[in-house]
């Protein structure tokens, strides 16, 4: 039976999901519904169903990047992060600034990091921030290309006006369904990503072949919240977006929705990443991107293709200002909210963590390529926050952002005891028999640092090995890390 406080804390995620459904769904179906090309009930039904499907089946990838940026490790913290983001989105929407949950949740996580004195992985932050520029640019390029091709295609097939109308309507519905799926897959990380490290649901096993992980259950609930947002509140926003974009022809509207959906999909699809990696091509970071940015980028792309005269630049500047202000407000709201939640409502907003620079940890640093000269003076020092730890280490040896993350990971004390009971009760679906054998061999052992379990498993079997280096190993390594993270949580 779930603790009722857990459910109360989850409500903020549901609120954020609702606001995402109410606002961002307009980016998917706004043009079609606002200009009455598609009926609202049809759009809401399709959007709701596909958002849930996208969140459930493809939501994991982008959520991992958010987890890297900052692992909010207590339910109270996750509650406030989601609440601050949701309130910011609602506030900005009331001010008439089209913002996205992506910007708001990033601000919230930084707010939590600042409050809990946790280390912020600058490289992950930069990766996310860079997508805020890449996403609209990419969307603009895709839209311009797609619009050119679509125009050539339409001229070539030369169907009549009424059929073209019907085909465009069908294409808009299909693009909307794809957009809703991509929105669910990419943006569910914004809604439920902060709850993943503290996911309160046990994994569910249905028969031998089908299991639903804790994160997937979270994503399903979040997806449903988005769907409720679409049904209850998105009509008004869709009508506004639709009438604002009335200068777009139906074909251009389809191109805008399609480009937005493609961009969201590119930044959410693990399968595409795998395909690119297999072809030794650079992969696209799996990051939650803003659907508003994608749509605005697409419209600019189409506008530029037609000479750029019809683009309302002052409106664009206003939108960009909103994108910059949102994370700042969300960060501030989250910080203040956490203070009240912890000190007035006496709720746990961060779990106590201890970081120890033991000799073994320093050896691990060296093995992982982190300079340790001079770090002996910190030997056996303990730290109560990751930011404090990284600051102490980097005052002696220079650390890259990635190395800072490793220092935090390897120094975190978390005692793990491998028992027969826990192995029996865990979800073994993702583990091969060799991996399971290796785990069984470690029965009865205790590890003071989680990475020690990983290293011990890798020593027993190469199937637990994190290979490192190269794009091809990236996916393999990520899978191993996901499995190890599951083991760390389970034991």
């Amino acid at each position, binding site marked *: 039976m779930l603790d009722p406080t857990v459910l109360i804390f989850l409500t903020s995620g549901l609120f954020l999901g609702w606001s995402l459904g109410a606002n961002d769904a307009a980016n998917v179906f706004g043009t079609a519904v606002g200009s009455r*090309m598609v009926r609202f009930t049809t759009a809401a039904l399709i959007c709701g169903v596909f958002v849930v499907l996208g969140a459930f089946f493809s939501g994991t990838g982008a959520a991992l990047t958010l987890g890297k940026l900052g692992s909010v490790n207590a339910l109270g913290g996750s509650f406030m992060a989601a609440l601050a983001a949701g309130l910011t989105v609602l506030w900005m929407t009331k001010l008439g600034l089209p913002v996205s949950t992506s910007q708001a949740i990033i601000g919230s996580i930084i707010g939590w990091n600042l409050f809990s004195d946790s280390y912020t992985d600058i490289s992950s932050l930069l990766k996310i921030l860079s997508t805020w520029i890449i996403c609209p640019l990419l969307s603009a390029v895709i839209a311009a290309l797609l619009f050119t091709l679509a125009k050539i295609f*339409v001229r070539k097939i*030369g*169907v009549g*006006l009424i*059929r073209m109308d019907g085909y465009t309507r069908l294409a808009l519905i299909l693009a909307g369904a794809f957009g809703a799926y991509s929105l669910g897959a990419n943006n569910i990380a914004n809604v439920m990503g902060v709850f993943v490290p503290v996911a309160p649901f046990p994994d569910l096993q249905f028969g031998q072949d089908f299991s639903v992980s804790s994160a997937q259950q979270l994503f399903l609930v979040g997806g449903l919240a988005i769907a409720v947002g679409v049904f209850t509140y998105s009509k008004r926003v869709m009508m506004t977006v639709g009438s604002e974009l009335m200068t777009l022809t*139906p074909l251009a509207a389809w191109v805008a929705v399609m480009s937005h959906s493609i961009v969201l999909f590119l930044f959410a699809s693990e399968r595409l990443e795998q395909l690119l990696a297999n072809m030794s091509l650079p992969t696209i970071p799996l990051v939650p991107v803003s659907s508003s940015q994608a749509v605005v980028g697409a419209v600019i792309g189409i506008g530029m293709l037609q000479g750029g005269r019809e683009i309302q630049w002052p409106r664009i500047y206003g939108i960009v200002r909103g994108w910059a202000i949102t994370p700042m407000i969300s960060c501030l709201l989250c910080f203040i909210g956490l203070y009240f939640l912890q000190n007035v409502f006496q709720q746990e907003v961060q779990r106590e963590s201890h970081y120890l620079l033991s000799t073994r940890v320093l050896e691990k640093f060296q093995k992982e390529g982190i300079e340790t000269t001079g770090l002996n003076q910190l030997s056996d020092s303990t730290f109560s926050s990751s930011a404090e730890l990284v600051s102490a280490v980097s005052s002696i040896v220079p650390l890259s952002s990635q190395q800072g993350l490793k220092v935090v990971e390897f120094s975190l004390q978390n005692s793990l005891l491998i028992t027969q009971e826990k192995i029996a009760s865990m979800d073994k679906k993702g583990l091969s028999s060799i991996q399971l054998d290796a785990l069984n061999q470690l029965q009865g052992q205790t590890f003071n640092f989680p990475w020690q379990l990983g290293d011990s498993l890798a020593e027993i079997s190469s199937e637990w090995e994190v290979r490192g280096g190269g794009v091809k190993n990236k996916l393999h390594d990520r899978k191993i890390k996901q499995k190890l993270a599951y083991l760390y949580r389970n034991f």
Partner: protein
Amino acid sequence: MNPLSLFFKKQYAVEDKIQRLLRYLEDMGQLYRGAYEAYLDGNYDDFAQLNEDLNKIEKEMDDLGLQIQMTLMRESLMPDSRDDLLWFLTKLDKVPSSFKHSLGAIAIEKPKIPQGFQDPLKKMLAHTHDAVKALAHATDSLFTDLRAVRQHVEEVGRQESEVDKVEYKLLRTVFENETFELARQYQLKGILKQLGAVTNLAEDVADAVLILATKHSA
């Protein structure tokens, strides 16, 4: 059965109605020419019968046009296409009215056609008929193949200019002929202008077709 018809039932239904409308338009063009020629040949009974037939078709076409407009207002089609089509149908509706008014004027006024006017008038009628046929094809292309619209619209333009040439010649003849009384001159001018107005209208509607085709093919 075309599997797409399941998805686009409403669109196909509107298309069918528009096709019927165009067949009526072509029939009217034929009847107009037949009735006018019958009058020129002095077959007044045939003229009366064909004029009556034309009025019947005009009424049916009117009803059908209204049905299409109601369908467009109630359902199917995106607002942009719907507004364009309503605008176009209102324009197209003026062509059958021009047939009716032209024949109506002859039926009431019963003008005496001067010697030597029969052949040029028949030539004008043939060009008018061809212009209406080309207009029907242009409109049909608007709903079947946008790429073919331009060539039919150009054909309407060519026929209109032929009609203009004959009309101008006949008007000069009318006003240069000193044996005609002024009243008769103005009566003949009215008749010629009404005949010429049919192709002018056809050209106007054809231009509208071209505008729509250009707009919806980009």
